[in-house]
């Protein structure tokens, strides 16, 4: 399952010129407001016919302007979660949710209504009409509607923007599960770097209608130019060793043990953990007596300086890279240099539940 997209389109004073290839899993489109994310998704959905382009999912050609092939939207079998809801005002919530089902082939109806309804917490709303819903409730129904259509490809345009943290934490795993277990590819627009890290197999960073970076999240997220200083993060592979009674899970990484709040992953499985660069504290000596449980050992590979007062220190830990964002002053005071051994202090609870994902590690695309 790969998605290949190449689109050129001129708007009045904006030109979209995007080409990327993404492997199976969740491809996150990341970029500032007005960078062309929704336009790309609309083209995949067939709602925007680009001036030129080719869109292929696996071997299935959705659009090829050269051969004048353009599949009608209703034949594309997509589940599109729109940025602005677009619920059907004349149908109640239940009817909205089940709308796509009428048209889905019988074998595509994997999700049961009750399961989706429960996950989205919209049980009490089923008989209401969209006009009587709050902003976040509408958004949740829109998510459910797309999921229940049994799509072969999911397009999600900031699906969680209107929701609170708790709700997000409940819905995110669903997307993960879809992309992994059911292997439905997902094209996902997000502004949140923690969503990116959690979900993405591939991140496509857009800026002013162009792709500025494309690759696995570990790579793109480490690229300050693509994601900005505050979005920089690293992603570690970790195997779940054991779930302990005090509510912590023990993971092993190439650089030592990691303790995280208990998670819903079977022991023995490998998961990935996003660690925001700014959540990492470095120490030359192994620190003692700290409340932080996680102290990983690594070798400084590189120290990068940007414009601000910060510096990125990249540590090698086996095959993984851990990035720490610390102040220049600290670099100077600690006299950090490449090839030194260094300890990284990571607060266990600083690893947000949303940052633990089960995404597979994928090869660089494009």
């Amino acid at each position, binding site marked *: 399952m790969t998605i290949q997209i190449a689109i050129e389109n001129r708007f009045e004073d904006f030109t979209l010129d995007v080409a990327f290839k993404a492997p199976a899993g969740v491809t996150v489109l990341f970029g500032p407001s007005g960078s062309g994310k929704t336009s790309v998704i609309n083209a995949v*959905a*067939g*709602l925007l016919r680009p001036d030129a382009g080719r869109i292929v999912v696996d071997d299935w050609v959705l659009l090829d302007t050269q051969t004048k092939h353009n599949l*009608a*939207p*209703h034949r*594309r*079998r*997509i*589940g*599109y979660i*729109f940025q*602005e809801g*677009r619920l*059907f*005002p*004349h149908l109640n919530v239940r009817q909205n949710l089940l*709308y*796509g089902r*009428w*048209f*889905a082939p019988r074998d595509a109806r994997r999700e049961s209504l009750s399961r989706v309804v429960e996950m989205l917490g919209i049980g009490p709303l089923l008989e209401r*009409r*969209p*006009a*009587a819903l709050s902003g976040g409730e509408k958004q949740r129904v829109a998510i459910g*509607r*797309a999921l229940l*259509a049994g799509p072969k490809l999911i397009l999600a345009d900031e699906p969680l923007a209107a929701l609170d943290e708790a709700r997000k934490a409940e819905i995110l795993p669903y997307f993960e599960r879809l992309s992994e277990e059911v292997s439905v590819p997902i094209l996902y627009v997000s502004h949140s770097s923690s969503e990116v890290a959690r979900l993405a197999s591939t991140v496509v960073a857009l800026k002013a209608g162009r792709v500025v970076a494309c690759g696995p999240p570990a790579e793109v997220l480490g690229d300050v130019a693509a994601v900005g200083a505050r979005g920089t993060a690293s992603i570690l592979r970790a195997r779940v060793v054991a779930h302990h009674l005090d509510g912590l899970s023990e993971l092993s990484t190439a650089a030592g043990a990691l303790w995280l709040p208990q998670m819903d992953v079977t022991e023995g499985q490998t998961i990935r953990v996003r660690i925001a660069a700014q959540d990492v504290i470095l120490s030359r000596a192994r620190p003692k007596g700290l409340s932080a449980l996680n102290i990983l050992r690594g070798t400084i590979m590189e120290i990068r300086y940007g414009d601000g007062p910060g510096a990125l220190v990249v540590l090698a830990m086996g095959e993984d890279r851990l990035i720490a964002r610390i102040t220049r002053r600290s670099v100077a005071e600690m006299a950090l240099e490449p090839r030194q051994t260094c300890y990284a202090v990571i607060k266990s609870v600083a690893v947000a539940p949303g940052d633990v994902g089960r995404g597979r590690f994928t090869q660089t695309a494009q």
Partner: protein
Amino acid sequence: MAADGAYWLGPAEWQAVRLSIQVSFWATAASLPLGIFTAYALARWDFIGKQLLNGLVHLPLILPPVVTGYLLLLTFGRRGPVGEALEQWFGIVLSFRWTGAAVAAAVMAFPLMVRAIRLAIEAVDPKLEQAASTLGASRMWVFLTVTLPLILPGIIAGAILAFAKAMGEFGATITFVSNIPGQTQTIPSAIYAFLQVPGGQEAAGRLVLIAVAIAMLALVLSEFVARRVAKRVAGA
């Protein structure tokens, strides 16, 4: 009431009332699908001859009804090209039948119906239709499950306009199918006849009251239905 009415209105007039309702109902009901289709085509499609179609639809409004009636006679009359074909192929005879009166009323009411429905279609947000299509609905299904329910208030408005117009139609009807009691004598023909003789005002007035009462009833009913439908659509 029939017994009472028998004193107030003659049997011929009662017949006219019954016939008027029948004619107006069928004129409206039978032309509704074509009206919706035409409105949709005018609102959403671009095709050669669109302006021509638009003009054609409006024609009965622009022409004096006598002319429309005369043209109907020339085409749908028994010796008219269409009328002949209809009789030969389908055994349908319009001339001097209530069916012809219904055709005349339908033609006269068509522009009103189409305009109302067209306005409603143009007010539908295409984004909702797009959403439906991404969910797998073909054009036809999008129309049936999204567009149609959303334009229902417009359809009701169009139908009620058409019904009212059909109730009042006279010029084209009498020119096309004349005035045969029990066959083609609708309320307006009867009223016209009364008004043509001195002193006929009173009898005409009674029929006017009946016509107004029927139309008002239809109007109030339709308003009620439209309001409920609109509420459903607005979702409140």
